[in-house]
């Protein structure tokens, strides 16, 4: 079995329900509690196993920074370019609110990688990947809080619990999905159950007939940063191409006549 998630970027509305449901379930789950620091203070922070980032994606402009660039390569020190051009040497060009741009919400939790470096770098054996279903877990009793696994994770999936000094990460709700006391429809991760737009699908990627496998094939599910070679399990379904939304035309019609037209339309109903 290769359990994981498919996340539909077309329908995700970025409501953070998955993250809060995750926090609620897991703070009293096998790896809980997930402590918070100054939860009601000015700068509240804490351990989360799922975070949602929002991006602007503009298909009209291909990002030059995305392509292998030769620009800075000729210089001995990239820092020289940075120091003279400022952060613009690293940042891309502006997007300018083009109609082809789209807001994409991207929830990210552990990708349950097949080649999980977070497991191999762990010196204590606290991090492990289950052979039977591929879930990567942290044994809270063995972790010494060295942070090395979080350094080895490219997806920011691991967060140190500042209060307990041990590493926390997504468990794929391992304490839910096998619970025989729950009705079968609820044997899913908390984030999947809570998603109001059903943008999150849980299943076995080893089974070609499972919903996650089918969705990945039909909608060309993407792995994030495949070039690092971690073989992440989770897949992201790109937004459907719906074309541009026409902008409203501006008219010079006086407000009074607009009001009359609107009133007539209302009465005609």
């Amino acid at each position, binding site marked *: 079995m290769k359990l994981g998630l498919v996340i539909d970027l077309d329908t995700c509305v970025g409501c953070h329900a998955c993250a809060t449901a995750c926090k609620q379930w897991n703070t009293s789950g096998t790896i809980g509690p997930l402590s918070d620091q100054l939860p009601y203070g000015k700068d509240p922070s804490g351990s*989360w196993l799922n975070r949602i*980032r929002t*991006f602007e994606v503009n298909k009209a402009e291909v990002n030059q920074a995305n392509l292998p660039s030769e620009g800075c390569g000729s210089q001995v*020190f990239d820092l020289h370019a940075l120091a003279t051009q400022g952060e613009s040497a690293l940042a891309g060009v502006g997007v300018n609110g083009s109609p082809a741009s789209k807001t994409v919400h991207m929830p990210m939790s552990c990708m349950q990688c097949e080649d999980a470096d977070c*497991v191999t*770098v762990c010196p204590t054996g606290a991090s492990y990947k289950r052979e039977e279903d591929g879930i990567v877990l942290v044994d809270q009793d063995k972790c010494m809080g060295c942070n090395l696994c979080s350094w080895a*994770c490219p997806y*920011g999936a691991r967060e*140190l619990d500042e209060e307990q000094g041990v590493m926390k990460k997504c468990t794929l709700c391992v304490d839910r999905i096998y619970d025989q006391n729950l009705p079968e429809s609820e044997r899913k991760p908390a984030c999947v159950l809570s998603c109001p737009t059903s943008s999150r699908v849980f299943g076995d990627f080893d089974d070609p007939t499972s919903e996650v496998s089918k969705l990945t094939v039909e909608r060309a599910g993407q792995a994030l940063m495949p070039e690092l070679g971690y073989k992440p399990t989770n897949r992201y379904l790109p937004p459907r191409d719906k074309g541009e939304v026409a902008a409203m035309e501006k008219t010079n019609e006086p407000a009074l006549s607009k009001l009359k037209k609107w009133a007539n339309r209302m009465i005609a109903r």
Partner: protein
Amino acid sequence: MKPAFSVLFFTVTSGIGYGLLMWLVGVQLISSAAVNVNNFLIAGFVGLTLATLGLLSSTLHLANQKNAWRAFSRFRTSWLSREGVFSLVYYPVILAYALLIYLSKGELSLLTYTLGVLSVLVALATVICTGMIYASLKPIRQWHNPLVTPLYLLFSITSGALLYACMLYVLEGQVSRSITVMFLLLLAVSFIAKMLYFRVIGKPDGATIGSATGFSQAHVRLLDAGHNADTFLTKEFVFDAGAMKLLRLRYLMIILAFVVPLGLAILTLAWDIAPAIFIAMLSLYAGLFLERWLFFAEARHVVRLYHGDQRA
């Protein structure tokens, strides 16, 4: 990456300690002259103290120290575990060697010789493991780089050579020309390797915000990171010193770690101005500290792509 003082102190100080011990034992094994037992024990004590202080400091950054003993359990997969094992194995080897030297009043028997070679190998392995902890991390291209481990090794042996020269002056009252020349050669090699390293990390490479989000054929930028206060991820990975400051510190590092020790070591050789070698040592130590700080400050973890960076 946020530079953690305990880790900077650990890698620099342990590196010098192991470097000194490698020179001390190495020279003893190669040279035909009789060993001065007292001098060996004093210099060895200094080396071992530095290595130990560094190792103790490395445990300070652990958030859950009571489980530190478990770190020896994953020798087969984890470089951190290997480093822990080698650093621990080093103690009985070097102490047995020192004891035999003491008991035999400096005579090298076959057993002493074997232990000496073994101690050098284990010290080398420990420093290599330290380098590999960083070099094995794929999400940080400034670390996942074939020059990183050789640099850790070079800096350890180079700074060890200078400290060895200082110890020889204190204990024997004269500057060892051969060790100082060796130091200068190693310093030159380290300098070339470090400049190559800067050249390599200066070239854009690796993951971009496009590959991080899966939109490789579009322009992508972060609108909202999803939190309004710092998180573990921003605290640990997002460290911005500013390019101008980093550049200036690079020059300062080159002056402290290379130019000043080079000049003072040449001064020592040419005019026998021995105290200069101590100033060279202090300058090199400060320079290496800065070098290690830059090693962290300039490292850009790919998780920064989810916090506003466009490329790694």
